[in-house]
């Protein structure tokens, strides 16, 4: 009979000592003390120098400047902003613009990226080569180069408003930007949104119930016709009962420019194109790698179970590939967000451009402003990677079980 192994003796102080010294004894502790001393000296030196320099330049440190009046205009603001607003308001406007371009960019980058990845994996030789060419060309050119190319060369070469390129007569592309119809909510809008949400919720519940039935009793319930009917019918009912939810304000050419509609600035257009096409090339490689990494046997095993090809992709391949794709994909989303700060090169009013650019040059509060800007990007990065780590941990556990 085997006896239970003897438990190691409990010696908390020894353990603490080992952890603190990193198993290197006195030498480790002494080294760390020296290192800490050096760091402290460096930091104190920096603080003393910075204080002296700021005093010499007559710049008051602190965040008091945020309450000051900005006095400059911003050509795109999602929230109400005027020149009389404070620098804090500028910060908010810039942050929202950064988030706006990041989200639009992420959506387009994902769509293009997945399409190109599928194209590269396609059995069609020409399509595969074409997609490969896209990736190789875009990936090997600097992003700033592409951004300037779109902004200075392509968008500037577009015709003036009078000769705009018309998109079905409702949206117009010209060298002053992209004029699109403006949506104005009417009184039925609230009901319309509620109807859509309710239809989505009901469909999800039905699908969950059907899956439960399938797993518990092996019955297949045909729910998609009902879901489709709900998704179309409920909002339609809302329109019939409460009127059209939105009215479109279609832009019209008057004189030399368009009136009505919303103008998407050329800066935003260029930035979105550059960011999404650039990131898409990287996303395509990630998706392709993920799909190729799923062993061939998985596909064959699915086929031998009698699953159809779409079902194999949906139930077997994609869930496994997603595990490999998701972490680097998130990384690319973060890169896109960080790269959106290149906006400063073309004058799109993102956080970096209006805050670390204009506000910095007006107030001279370099330390506070750059620290705040860095903190924003750092916070976005750290929160996202923390979520990703949690997800990875969750995956690890579910795979081990």
């Amino acid at each position, binding site marked *: 009979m085997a006896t239970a192994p003897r438990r190691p003796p409990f010696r908390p102080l020894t353990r603490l000592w080992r952890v603190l010294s990193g198993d290197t004894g006195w030498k480790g502790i002494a080294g*760390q003390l020296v290192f800490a001393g050096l760091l402290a000296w460096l930091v104190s030196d920096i603080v003393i*120098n910075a204080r002296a320099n700021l005093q*010499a330049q007559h710049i008051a440190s602190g965040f008091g400047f945020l309450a000051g009046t900005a006095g400059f205009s911003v050509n795109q603001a999602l929230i109400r902003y005027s020149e009389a607003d404070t620098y804090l308001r500028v910060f908010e406007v810039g942050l929202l613009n950064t988030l706006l371009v990041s989200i639009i960019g992420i959506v387009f980058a994902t769509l293009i990226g997945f399409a190109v990845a599928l194209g590269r994996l396609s059995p069609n030789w*020409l399509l595969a080569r*074409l997609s490969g060419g896209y990736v190789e060309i875009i990936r*090997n050119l*600097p992003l700033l180069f592409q951004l300037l190319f779109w902004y200075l*060369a392509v968008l*500037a070469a577009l015709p003036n408003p009078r000769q705009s390129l018309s998109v079905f007569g409702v949206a117009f592309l010209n060298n002053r930007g992209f004029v699109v119809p403006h949506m104005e909510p009417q009184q039925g809008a609230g009901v319309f949104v509620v109807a859509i949400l309710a239809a989505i919720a009901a469909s999800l519940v039905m699908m969950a119930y059907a899956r439960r039935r399938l797993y518990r009793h092996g019955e297949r319930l045909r729910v998609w016709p009902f879901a489709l009917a709900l998704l179309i019918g409920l909002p339609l009912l809302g329109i019939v009962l409460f009127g059209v939810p939105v009215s479109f304000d279609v832009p019209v050419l008057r004189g030399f420019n368009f009136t009505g509609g919303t103008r998407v600035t050329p800066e935003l257009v260029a930035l979105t194109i550059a960011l999404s096409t650039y990131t898409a090339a990287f996303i395509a490689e990630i998706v392709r790698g993920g799909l190729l990494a799923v062993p061939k046997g998985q596909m064959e095993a699915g086929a031998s179970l009698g699953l159809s090809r779409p079902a194999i992709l949906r139930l077997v391949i994609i869930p496994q590939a997603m595990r490999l794709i998701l972490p680097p994909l998130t990384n690319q989303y973060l890169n896109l967000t960080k790269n959106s700060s290149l906006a400063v090169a073309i004058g799109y009013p993102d956080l970096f451009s209006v805050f670390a650019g204009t506000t910095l040059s007006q107030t001279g509060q370099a330390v506070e402003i750059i620290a705040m*800007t860095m903190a924003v990007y750092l916070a976005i990065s750290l929160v996202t990677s923390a979520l990703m780590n949690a997800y990875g941990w969750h995956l690890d556990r579910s795979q081990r079980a």
Partner: protein
Amino acid sequence: MSGDDTIFVRETLAPARKAPVVTTGIIGFLRTRLFNSPLNIVLTFASAALLWIVLEPTIRFLFVDAVWKGADRTACLADQAGHPVGACWPFIQAKFTQLTYGFYPEDQRWRANLTFALAALLLAPLLVPKIPGKTLNAGLFFIAFPFLAFFLLRGGGLDGFAFYWLAELFGVAWTPSLTRFWLDFSLTTTVVTAAAVWLWGGWLNGRRAGIVTALTFAGIALVIEALQLDRGGLPVVDTRQWGGLLVTLVVSITGIVASMPVGIALALGRTSRIPLLRIFSIAFIEFWRGVPLITVLFFATYMLPLFLPGDFTIDALVRVLVGIALFAGAYNAEVIRGGLLAIPRGQREAANALGLSYWKTTGLIVLPQALRHVIPALVNSFIALFKDTTLVLIVAIFDLLGQLRAAFADPTWATPTTLFTGFAFTGIIYWVGCFAMSRYSLFVERRLNAHRNT
């Protein structure tokens, strides 16, 4: 046995079977890869159309409709050329020196050319695996070349050597003179050589190290003599006059060279068991990786001067180089850490069993293997660095892209196609650089994974 009637002999040939569908050759290729299903036929035609839409105007622009000769913008106007004008190559010819050297003085450009040539001469053999002497070659390229390039490109001389700096540090007056310089140099040589001998374990074991050190100093003396660093050196060219491809290469090569030690140190720190070192490395790496490069450049441009003593000025290019080296170092650290983690524990344990110290284990056993593992990933991060050098134009340092932008502002060359011509030219330069590096990374990867037969 007679059974003639049961023997069946066929009197006519069996009908020939239909030839199998060709799956080889061009026809087979068309059949299996391009036109094998209705969907694929549609895709093939759509792709071909797309390819035509993109390629035809590009080729027309770059070659067919291009203007090759001219003195100013009039040559590139449609009514002058008599046909729709594509690329305006005279613009590139006129701006070529600006795009390559920036405003580097014309009579000094041989220095930039010499530096380019030296870099190519040292780099080429480093990239071919078959050529021996990698240690010496790498040492020359990564350590000696940056110093040489500094004195070549910037100019200026040396007032003294190690003892001069010591005197400076302790506030001892030192009037530079030729004899003092060479006295200082020979003293430094003696002390460092003696130290090398002593460190490598006395005369018996360390004499080799001593000889190598002495030879290195002899080489340094030769360079000093050749560039006359002891007599003021070459005329100083301020970094504000640098520009174009020169700055792009200076920034990327300095970034690559300087980010390696930073990356190795941070990776070792992050894998170390000493808590303070590990925490510091993690914080440092995550900080730099979490912020965009532009904020780093702004940090270097606006905040670094504030952190230094008031009378201490630091060159704008150097500030940017520091920022880029730290930024790239953090990314390299993560790559190298991956390599360190991939080395089996047994390697370190075996080295410990032989009685090697931590530094010898790391330097002789673990790091060489780890670095070899991650060469492809490192090259990829170098590609990213090369592309990121374009960002320096935002802090008013005119690299290739910055000079291009400046060249666009010249009214003598303002034509409708100038912009596209400029972008085509610089785009080709950037693309060739990045593509070559990525192919090289693939080549190394295949070589490293040759045993896996993939």
